[in-house]
C-alpha cells in the first residue's frame, strides 16, 4: 500500500544516500546477497561497503562487460547479485553480456542504472541514457523498473532480492520530487493510481510522475479531469489498469524521461492498439542524443515538463 505525499516539493534525501543505506541493509540481512560496482561507488553512496563486507561487496573497477558476466557467474553458484553502474553503461556498454550471460543463461541478477535521461546533467551526451528502457525491454522475460522516488527505492529494492531472471532498475541519485510516504510499499508489475480522472489518463514513470501530477492539477482548473498512473514497472506492463482506464477515459498521454522509441509510451501504445484503440500522445525525448546542462534546462530542451504534458493532454482529448 502506498500513501501519496506529493506537494511539488523536493525529497529531503538524495537517491544516492538512500541507495547506500538500502544496499548496506540488503547485504547485512542476507549473506547470499552480493553487490558489484564499476568504480562509481563514491557517486552512489556505497564507497566503504567493500571493506565492511569483503565477502559480499566487490569493487570491479572500470570493466562493465566483465562485471555483468561476473554477476551471472555469482548467480550460477547461488548468490543474489545487485550490480550498479551508470545507466548508459549498464545498457549500451555491456548489452550483450547482460543479454547472454545474465538473461539468456537464466541467471538472477538485479542491475541498477543510475542517472537516467536528463538527470545525468553535466556528464552530457556520452553519459545520458535515453535508450536504456528500450534496450532492456527488448530482452526476453526481463523486468524493467524506474524508481519514482527515494521512498520507493528504499522499499522496493530489498524486495527484488529473490526475483527470478533479469531485473533492471533506473535510479535518480539526486533529490527528485517527493511522491510517496516512507512507509509505502510497492508490488512489481502493479501500477499505482495516483489520481483518478474521467477525460484522459496520463501514464508516467520516474521524474515525469511529479510533472504529471502538476499537469493534472492545472488541467483540473481548466475543466479537464486527468487520471495519473505511476507505471513504475515498465515491463511487465500493468495491462489491467490500462484497459480499465481505456474504457473509462478513451484517451492517453504517456510521459517518460527517455526516448519515445521503444520506451514506456511505445509499450502503452502497443498494448492499446491491440486491445482498446484510442489516442495516445507520447511525451518524451523525440529521438535525440543528450547534451550537458542543468536537469531543468534539459527538461525544457527535450520537452519533459508539465507544460508538454498539458499540451499533449489537450491534443489527446481533441482526438477522441
Amino acid at each position, binding site marked *: 500500500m502506498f500513501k501519496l505525499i506529493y506537494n511539488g516539493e523536493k525529497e529531503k534525501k538524495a537517491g544516492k544516500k538512500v541507495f547506500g543505506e538500502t544496499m548496506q541493509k540488503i547485504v547485512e540481512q542476507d549473506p547470499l546477497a*552480493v553487490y558489484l560496482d564499476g568504480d562509481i561507488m563514491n557517486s552512489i553512496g556505497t564507497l566503504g561497503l567493500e571493506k565492511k563486507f*569483503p*565477502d*559480499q561487496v*566487490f569493487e*570491479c*573497477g572500470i*570493466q562493465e*562487460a*566483465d*562485471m*555483468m*558476466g*561476473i*554477476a*551471472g*557467474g*555469482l*548467480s*550460477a*553458484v*547461488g*548468490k543474489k547479485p545487485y550490480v550498479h553502474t551508470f545507466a548508459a553503461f549498464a545498457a549500451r556498454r555491456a548489452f*550483450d*553480456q547482460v543479454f*547472454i*550471460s545474465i538473461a*539468456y*543463461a*537464466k541467471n538472477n541478477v538485479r542491475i541498477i542504472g543510475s542517472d537516467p535521461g536528463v538527470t545525468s546533467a553535466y556528464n552530457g551526451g556520452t553519459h545520458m541514457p535515453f535508450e536504456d528502457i528500450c534496450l532492456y525491454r527488448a530482452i526476453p522475460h526481463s523486468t524493467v523498473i524506474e524508481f519514482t522516488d527515494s521512498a520507493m527505492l528504499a522499499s522496493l529494492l530489498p524486495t527484488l532480492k529473490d526475483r527470478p531472471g533479469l531485473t533492471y532498475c533506473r535510479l535518480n541519485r539526486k533529490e527528485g520530487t517527493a511522491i510517496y510516504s516512507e512507509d509505502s510499499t510497492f508490488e512489481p508489475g502493479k501500477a499505482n493510481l495516483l489520481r483518478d480522472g474521467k477525460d484522459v489518463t496520463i501514464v508516467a514513470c520516474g521524474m515525469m510522475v511529479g510533472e504529471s501530477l502538476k499537469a493534472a492539477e492545472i488541467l483540473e482548473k481548466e475543466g479537464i479531469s486527468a487520471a495519473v498512473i505511476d507505471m513504475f514497472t515498465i515491463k511487465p506492463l500493468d495491462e489491467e489498469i490500462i484497459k480499465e482506464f481505456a474504457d473509462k477515459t478513451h484517451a492517453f498521454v504517456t510521459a517518460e524521461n527517455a526516448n519515445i522509441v521503444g520506451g514506456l509510451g511505445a509499450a502503452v501504445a502497443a498494448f492499446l492498439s491491440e486491445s482498446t484503440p484510442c489516442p495516445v500522445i507520447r511525451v518524451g525525448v523525440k529521438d535525440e542524443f543528450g547534451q550537458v546542462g542543468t536537469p531543468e534546462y534539459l527538461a525544457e530542451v527535450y520537452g519533459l515538463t508539465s507544460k508538454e504534458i498539458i499540451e499533449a493532454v489537450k491534443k489527446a482529448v481533441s482526438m477522441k
Partner: protein
Amino acid sequence: MITPLKEFATDIRIQEMIEFKARGFGHTGGSLSVADCLAALYGGIMRIDPKNPQWEDRDRLVMSKGHAGPALYATLALKGYFPLEELKTLNQNGTKLPSHCDRNLTVGVDMTTGSLGQGASTACGMALGLKHSGKDARVYLILGDGECQEGQVWEMALFAAHHKLNNLIAFIDYNKRQLDGYVKDICDLGDLVAKFKSFNWYTTMIKGDDPDLIRQTVLDVQKNQGDRPGMIVLDTIKGAGVPQIENIPLNHHTNVTPEEADEIIAQLEEFKRKG
C-alpha cells in the same frame, strides 16, 4: 597400448564424429583440438557426480569457446550424464544439444556460452562466489585462442588476479587457427604465456595432445599457484587426432559426410587398439 586417459580422449573424438555424422556438419576443428583437455578434466581431475549434476560442491567447467559444445556433450555422455544415443540429436530441431553450450538445455553443462569472451567472466564470477562462500570447489575455464582477441578476456584476467582467485584454472586451446585463417595473420596474440604472467597468473605452456601430461600439469598448477589464478596454454592442432580435418585449411566449421565420418571413426577405433 594407449593410456586410459588417451583412450577416453579418443572415445570423445569418436562420439564427436557420431554427432557430426548425424547432422552432416559442425564445429569440428575446435571440438577435436580440445578433446584431450576434456579427457584430463573429466577423467579424474574434476570433482563431479554425474548422478547429481547440480551438486553444490562440484567443480565447474565453463567452455567459453562455446562452439566446442559437441566435445563437451561427447564427454558428458561418456561420463553418464545422459545417454550416448542422444548425441545424434546435435543441432536437430528441438534438440538439447545446440551448437553452443547452454546450461538450461543440457544436463551437466555448467554455463551458457557462445558469445566469445563471456565465459571468462562467468567462470570468474563462479570462482569468486565459491571462494567467498568458503567452498573448496574449483572452476575450470577453457578459452579459445582467437577468443583472446576479445577485450573481455583481459578484463577478467585483471580481475581474477586482483581478487586472488586461486580456485580458478584456465586453459587456452592454442590451435593457431580461427574462422578466417591463422590467428597470427588475423590479429596476432603474441606471447600468451608472457602476457598472462604479466597479469600475475601462474602460467605454463605444454603440448595439448597428451591428456596424461595435461592431468599432471593441472596437479602441478594446483600445487604451485599460491594465491594466483592458473593458466595452462595448450599447444594444439585444430582438428587434432583426425588428419582429414586437420588438413582442411579453414576447419572452424566443416561438412562431414556419413562416409567420411565412418572412415574417421574406424581410424580412431584402430588407434585405440594399436596406439
